[in-house]
């Protein structure tokens, strides 16, 4: 072979498994034989590369794929280099892409070495978990009225009642997991909003009456609508009722994210 004959190839055996990928192997072959990255003898390096690929002992599918794809790329490059280039068309060196990739990868390797050293020096710092301080709840005498206490008390009883009822219910013989398609809930919420522009989430989806997964799905649907900037959500205080208000008259569901667009 003509190209690359003047290079002293270092042919010590290497194990493909020791390399992070085709670029790592190529960089190693090039560095080892002191080749200029911008003037790689493609034919020779391809032969070298292939000989290592053939001798590989164990490779998982993902690694093998990347090595083979790179082999195909090298073959293609080799072919391009063999074809005569018409004199008029001054094309860019077909090896330019490869050189750029290799140079970029080389830099990433040097940065990763630097980060490894930084981590060895600074990674051993220990942090302390936050002290478990109970949250402080502020009450101002002015805005709490007797009726608020009554309402709060009733709310506690109502929630407790729900628990009691659950505990009282005999267990169903077969526990089945119900799947609530969020898309369906999303559509029904959109219809509801079209109908009356706003609604109280806690009343519409009462966790004491409805199926729990239905309420969870509805909650996720409302969050998604908020993300899509179709509704405004309002909650006056912690654990209070959530008001859902449509921003526009028509709800546009086209921006629904992953998991919302298809029924399962």
């Amino acid at each position, binding site marked *: 072979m003509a190209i690359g004959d003047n290079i002293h190839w270092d042919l010590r055996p290497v194990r493909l498994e020791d390399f*992070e*990928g*085709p*670029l*790592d192997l190529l960089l190693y072959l090039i560095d080892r034989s002191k080749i200029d990255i911008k003037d790689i003898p493609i034919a020779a390096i391809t032969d070298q590369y*292939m000989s290592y*690929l*053939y001798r*590989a002992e164990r*490779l998982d599918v*993902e*690694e*093998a*794929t*990347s090595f*083979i*794809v*790179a*082999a*195909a790329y090298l*073959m293609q490059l080799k072919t391009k280099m063999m074809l005569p280039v018409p004199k008029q068309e001054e094309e860019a060196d077909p090896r330019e892409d490869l050189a750029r*990739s290799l*140079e*970029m*990868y080389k*830099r*990433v*390797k*040097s*940065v*990763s*070495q*630097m*980060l*490894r050293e*930084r*981590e060895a*020096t*600074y*990674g*051993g*710092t*220990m*942090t*302390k*978990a*936050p*002290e478990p*301080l109970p949250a*402080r709840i*502020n009450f101002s005498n002015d805005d709490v009225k007797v009726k608020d206490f009554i309402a709060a008390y009733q709310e506690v009883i109502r929630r407790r009642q729900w628990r009691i009822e659950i505990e009282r219910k005999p267990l169903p013989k077969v526990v089945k997991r119900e799947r609530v398609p969020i898309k369906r809930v999303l559509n029904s919420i959109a219809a509801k909003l079209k109908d009356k522009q706003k609604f109280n989430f806690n009343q519409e989806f009462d966790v004491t009456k409805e199926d729990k997964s239905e309420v969870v799905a509805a909650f996720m649907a409302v969050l998604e609508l908020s993300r899509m900037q179709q509704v405004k959500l309002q909650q006056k205080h912690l654990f209070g009722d959530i008001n859902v208000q449509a921003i526009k008259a028509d709800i546009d569901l086209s921006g629904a*994210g*992953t998991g919302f667009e298809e029924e399962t």
Partner: protein
Amino acid sequence: MSKILDDRITPAYGTDRVSSDKSLEQIKAIIEALLFTAGEPVSINRLADTILADTAQIEDAALQLQLDYSGDARGLRIIRINNAFQMVTDASMYEHILQLAEIEKRQQLSQAAYEVLSIVAYKQPVIRAVIEKIRGVGSDSSIAKLMERGLIYESGRLDIPGRPITYSTTDEFLRCMGYSSLADLPPFPDTEETPDEQMSLTEEMFPEAEDTAEQPTELPKLD
């Protein structure tokens, strides 16, 4: 309840902060106690709201506290991460802490994980396709490992077909590498590029990424 006390109960978030009449030493002492209690990084704004001092005073005091802790006679350090301060143990104490707790030495990240971390650090926010293009090999497991270690996080999605997830480094990354902010990272090798001046790799790489669909029909034998 007096007005002053009321103000202390309700943090003055968002209101104009006034210079505190507390002495620098007093503010330092309070910051020290707060950082110990919090464990986590506490932002300058949060400290200012809690102590009722202006942010310049807080920063001044925190930096002095940092200096007080910097000597060899201390096992604790005050570190700065972006606009927050945190109390941590000095990294050189790690060996002794290992003895105390008989815990396993922290697991080293693989070469692959460090490569992915390097790319995320300098190209963030960056998508998986760009990471894999630069490394020339699939990087799923390394990304998962870095997420698990809390060094990178899913910072958003790109507005291109498929809405791919973008990855960025966390405050934990800064702490592990001993940096106060991303601006402390040295320039990318052989370039003047700092993390702030990223190349728009995504645009550059997308047309190419589609070319890889052309694969040879006959694969070389692997034995």
